[in-house]
């Protein structure tokens, strides 16, 4: 099915749906909302990483009668944040498991007074010994979670890894580490809550997943579902950071609203947001790889360990995606992946664009370059010899039924970047230049949508209705936070019905209005939810032709006239569709085998770096990214997704370091947590190859997370090319370069047996 040539709106760069409001400064983010009688809430947090709460003291100089104070004892329902497991308390009750854990909430009409009151609460602890690293958690000398510190483990096995070592011409081992990464959305987390006995709870906030928040509030307040209403406000960036944390903040604001009788606003400042909310999981990945003498992969034995922080949150699903991306886009007959997520006494790690894949892909793509050196093959050639192709199977034995064009993407990326010519030139020039240049690549896939049976469990419902003002309206719980949900879904609906883009609007992301179409995560919105909208549109046309005399060919006026006739005869004009898995999708959760994802997006990226051997700074000078993401629904938005993801990936590799001191983020400011600026981001060249995916909306697959997966390994591979020294850990800061380069040569060559 090739729909590329036949669409009017899909595939065109229509302007962002809510763009004008954003440009005029009139889009309403949570902190822009005022209400009568609004109070301000703040949080008293733990100052130690682990311990028992002995006492909570209130400074007598403060007139506490003016304030509303909430503790765990005020929680009417269950004291936990409802996510996958129920281990994380909404408010600490008797003990704390990480620094900056919420213990007490305070509200007052005066924002300044609330801040002062927070500093007038004194908490006495009986400290318990904390653990901060994967290694300490693995030792299990101190057990802080469950019986073994393990949130989740997976075993993925294909073939028999053990049988391969004896036959191997080469065995190459390596260990790779990634650090935490902060989302650094420019809008901090924020929420407003209001409560009345009659209406129940209403919350407005910066969030990705209205129904996650809804479910959590139902549990915390023991309310019926119809007494909880969640409304997303304009959201200033999320990147996964507003997937799970808003459930906690919504509960906090709601507890204060219920007890104070006022609507309560809680908006974190930057320091609180950085210290107390989730980040990307740190990881350690070990590879042991067997190859034959031609450089074909015989066996990949992979161990993935992630640091999950103090509570389980989303660690199991992040680990799952890491596991399923750890073998890279390669064919290998024998694969074993043993993965484990460990508890530590740090703020829980959570969802962040890529969701485990960037960690796993950093390891495997760095490792491929190490293998190339160890066995004396060019890194490009090594990849070519092992790429997945149509009909091959992945590590989960998923057959590649859709076209796989890695070779084409690689050719494009190499040609556009003048890779070979530049490598040769840099090799000549580097000898006489203290600034050493190099080229590096990464090849990878990113699974679109939820893992395995995930989309089946979600069972999403989405659709459209027609308003009495004559607009087609998209009904989804999927949210806009910059990535383009509003634009893409209205494009799809306009295309599918045959209307103008301006005839289609988004319903507000309000749980009292829109059905549960699942969370806005996992690169699923365009492919999965978009497909539901496409189907709902076809269903609406069928309804109208059956019940309201809509002809096969119709004008916009005829369409809305038919809607009026339908409404008069049958009531609201609504068409909803529920998710149906593409045929032939089978996933075995126990054996971790089968169709891991309904579709994969593919990419090859090339980085050109310059390493200054005088200042020890490394910078990316230029970047190329070729990808196949199915049909590109909006080229401007798609390009923006790729470029933005690459910029975050560059930050992940070279700039962004979370420094923990006793489990507290010590650099919780934009002054000292550094992301790439306008002067740091290199020219980025983006190339799409389009192969429509028949089960995605107008051929779309996932796009949002893919670009973040590749920059870190591509950049570190380029650094190796530039200076001949391997670095296997990110972030790689100038001090790390200095530490290794200033020491007389102890080049760590990869182990080759």
């Amino acid at each position, binding site marked *: 099915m090739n729909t590329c040539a036949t669409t009017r709106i899909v595939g065109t*760069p229509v*302007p*962002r749906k*809510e*763009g*004008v*409001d*954003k*440009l*005029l*400064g*009139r*889009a*309403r*983010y949570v*902190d*822009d909302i*005022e209400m009568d009688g609004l109070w301000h809430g703040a949080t008293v947090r733990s100052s130690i990483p682990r311990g028992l709460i002995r006492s909570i003291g209130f400074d007598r100089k403060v007139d506490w009668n003016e304030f509303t104070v909430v503790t765990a004892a005020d929680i009417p329902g269950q004291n936990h944040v409802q996510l996958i497991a129920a281990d994380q308390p909404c408010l600490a009750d008797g003990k704390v498991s990480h620094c900056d854990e919420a213990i007490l909430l305070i509200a007052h009409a005066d924002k300044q007074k609330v801040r002062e009151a927070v500093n007038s609460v004194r908490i006495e602890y009986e400290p318990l010994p904390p653990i901060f690293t994967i290694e300490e958690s693995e030792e299990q000398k101190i057990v802080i979670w469950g019986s073994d510190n393990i949130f989740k483990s997976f075993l993925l096995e294909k073939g028999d890894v053990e049988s391969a070592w004896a036959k191997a011409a080469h065995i190459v081992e390596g260990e790779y580490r990634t650090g935490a990464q902060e*989302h*650094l*959305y*420019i*809008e*901090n987390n924020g929420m407003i809550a209001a409560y009345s006995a009659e209406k129940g709870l209403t919350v407005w906030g910066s969030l990705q997943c209205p129904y996650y928040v809804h479910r959590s509030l139902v549990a915390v307040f023991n309310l019926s579902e119809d007494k909880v209403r969640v409304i997303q406000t*304009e*959201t*200033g*960036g*999320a*990147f996964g950071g507003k997937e799970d944390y808003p459930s906690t903040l919504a509960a906090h604001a709601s507890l204060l609203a219920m007890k104070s009788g006022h609507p309560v606003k809680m908006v974190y*400042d*930057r320091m609180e947001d950085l210290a107390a909310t989730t980040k990307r999981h740190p990881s350690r990945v070990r590879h042991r790889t067997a190859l034959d003498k031609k450089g074909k992969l015989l066996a990949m034995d992979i161990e993935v360990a992630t640091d999950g922080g103090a509570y389980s949150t989303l660690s199991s699903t992040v680990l799952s995606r890491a596991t399923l991306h750890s073998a890279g886009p390669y064919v290998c007959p024998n694969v074993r992946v043993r993965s484990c997520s460990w508890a530590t006494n740090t703020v829980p790690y959570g969802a962040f664009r890529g969701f485990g894949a960037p960690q796993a892909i950093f390891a495997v793509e760095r490792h491929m370059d190490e293998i190339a050196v160890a066995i004396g093959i060019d890194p490009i050639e090594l990849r070519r010899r092992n790429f997945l192709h149509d009909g091959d199977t992945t590590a989960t034995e998923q057959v590649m039924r859709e076209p796989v064009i890695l070779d084409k993407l690689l050719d494009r990326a190499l040609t556009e970047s003048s890779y070979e010519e530049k490598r040769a030139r840099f090799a000549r020039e580097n000898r006489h230049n203290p600034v050493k240049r190099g080229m590096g690549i990464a090849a990878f896939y990113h699974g679109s949508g939820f893992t395995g049976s995930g989309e089946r469990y979600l069972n999403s419902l989405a659709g459209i209705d027609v308003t009495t003002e004559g607009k087609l309206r998209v009904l989804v719980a999927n949210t806009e*936070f*910059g*990535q*383009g949900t509003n634009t893409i879904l209205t494009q799809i609906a306009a295309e599918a019905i045959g209307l103008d883009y301006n005839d289609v609007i988004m319903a507000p992301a309000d749980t009292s209005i829109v059905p549960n179409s699942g969370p806005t995560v996992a690169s699923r919105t365009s492919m999965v939810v978009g497909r539901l909208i496409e189907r709902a549109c076809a269903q609406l046309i069928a309804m109208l032709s059956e019940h309201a005399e809509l002809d096969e060919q119709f004008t916009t006026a005829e369409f809305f006239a038919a809607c009026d006739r339908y409404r008069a005869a049958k009531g609201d004009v609504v068409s909803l569709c529920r998710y149906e898995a593409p045929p032939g999708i089978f996933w075995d959760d126990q054996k971790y085998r089968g169709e891991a994802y309904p579709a994969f997006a593919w990419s090859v990226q090339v980085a050109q770096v310059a390493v200054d051997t005088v200042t020890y700074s490394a910078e990316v000078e230029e970047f190329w990214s070729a990808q196949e993401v199915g049909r590109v629904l909006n080229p*401007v*938005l798609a*390009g*923006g997704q790729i*470029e*933005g*993801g*690459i*910029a*975050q990936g560059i930050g992940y590799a070279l700039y962004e370091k979370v420094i923990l001191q006793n489990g507290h983020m010590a650099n919780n*400011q*934009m*002054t000292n947590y550094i*992301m*790439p*600026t*306008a*002067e740091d*981001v290199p*020219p*980025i*060249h983006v190339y799409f190859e389009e192969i429509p995916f028949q089960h995605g909306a107008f051929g779309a697959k996932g796009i949002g997370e893919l670009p973040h997966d590749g920059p870190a390994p591509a950049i570190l591979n380029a650094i190796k090319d530039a200076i001949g020294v391997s670095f296997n850990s990110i972030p790689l800061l100038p001090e790390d370069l200095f530490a290794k380069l200033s020491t007389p040569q102890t080049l760590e060559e990869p182990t080759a047996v």
Partner: protein
Amino acid sequence: MNKGWPTIRLAVNGEMRAVRTPAMKRLLDVLREDLHLTGTKEGCGEGECGSCSVRMNGELVNSCLVPILQAEGASIETVEGLACDAELHPLQKAFLDCGGAQCGICTPGMLMAATQLLAQNPHPSMAEIREGLAGNLCRCTGFIRIFESVIAATANSPGRTTEQATDAR
């Protein structure tokens, strides 16, 4: 309690305003809370992200770092003053067309920084655009389409060089 508060007079987007407020209240808060101009955003509160950028007497400032006393008698321009009636400012139009805004939270500050840049240098080179916007963080776009937006906004004015047209990428 507000007896000791001074009355501060300032022009905001061409209109004279008077606010009675603590002298050390941030210009950012006066704009957002007293004058209800919520287009100006707070991202970090320490002058690093530039989301709160406004123009003050023709200079770009982080309004989170300006005590209101310092703005006495000043002329302030915010994002709300850019568009002329129903007509988007050329920069706003370019940001819309080129994809210069994604989540939109940095956009008001970015637009003010770009306005300042073009006021001083109507035809900036790529390096000058990068430098001019370096105090404004955007986490969504990777900046590339913001650079293109700025170039597009200058496209129809005279004196544009070919180098500008081609060096965005």
